[in-house]
């Protein structure tokens, strides 16, 4: 198993199982898990989470997560 630290921002905070906050929380995953499987575990609909940054760099859903990385997930905002 690996452990990643997840931070959810804005409207995605509601999917934080520890409370409605952007504070990072640990998630355990089988080795070889990708971003898509992390989103599934957290029950975040894929259409709400187009912007996933792993250790501050944007990555696609098929990106394989490594032990200890920080994953930040933002919803798209585009208003003016």
């Amino acid at each position, binding site marked *: 198993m690996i452990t990643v630290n997840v931070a959810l*921002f804005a409207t995605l905070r509601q999917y934080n199982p520890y409370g409605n906050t952007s504070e990072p929380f640990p998630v355990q995953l089988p080795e070889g898990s990708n971003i898509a499987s992390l989103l599934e575990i957290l029950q975040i609909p894929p259409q709400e989470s187009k*912007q996933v940054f792993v250790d*501050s760099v944007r990555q696609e859903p098929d990106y394989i997560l490594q032990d200890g990385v920080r994953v930040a997930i933002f919803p*798209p*905002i*585009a*208003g*003016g």
Partner: protein
Amino acid sequence: MELTALIRAQAREAVMPGGESYLSLSLASVREIARICACSVKEVEIAALEKGVIPERYQRNLGTVGGPTGQVRLLRARAAVIGLGGLGGLAAELLARMGVGTLVLVDGDSFSESNLNRQLVSTEKNLGQNKAAAAAVRLQEVNSALELITFPCFITPENTGTILEGCQVVLDCLDSLGARFLLQRFCRELRLPLVHGAIAQFYGQLAVIFPGDPGLERIYGPSPPDRGIEKELGNPAATPALVASLQVQEAMKILLGREDLMRGRLLFVDTLQGVFETVDLGKD
């Protein structure tokens, strides 16, 4: 009497809040000299600053812009504000007050009642008027030195090159991703820095994108929807004002040639939880 002699004759000794004395030129004097010399208010202001005489309206700018030389640089600059809604209305106003000499104002939309909660230029009196034209009316009253170039239209692949011609910085104050990506494409082609801002409800974001930098595709992904979560959550008064202010600070730094910019990063602001988060946009 020549311009310099008139400026010297009208200049008055004054004292900075910090106690330092300086030569000040009032707005009334600037206007009078411009009338006598048949030149523009902006030309008088630049000539005064080059002689070390400070137009009083810019006195409080000097510590931020790097003295009279920085103020001259701003007065000679041209910035484009694309979109004159919640972000662009305030951004244009702040650029005008700082004395950015030429502002290109672009928006094809007209003010409606649902704009009144947040869009600075909108008033009960100008409902139905084009946003760019209404902004020009307001900004002329704020700073008569400015040259205001108004495009009462939306950006298209056909007109964007012409709109951005001669600019040194472009502010993305739009509200749809299709238009934002189009603007970024032209900024890259024309080698112009783009200051991106976007908002939704309590949330906002900012990025400074130079040609060759990772940009909107790194933020939104390769095939984003045209709108974000603002579609459901709406836009209040303070969030666009906050993000527009951050955009203007970055635009000012670009125009002043400073190197400490928000490049290669996305600043995400959550005013509900009081969190400012910066993420790296990576390298191309």
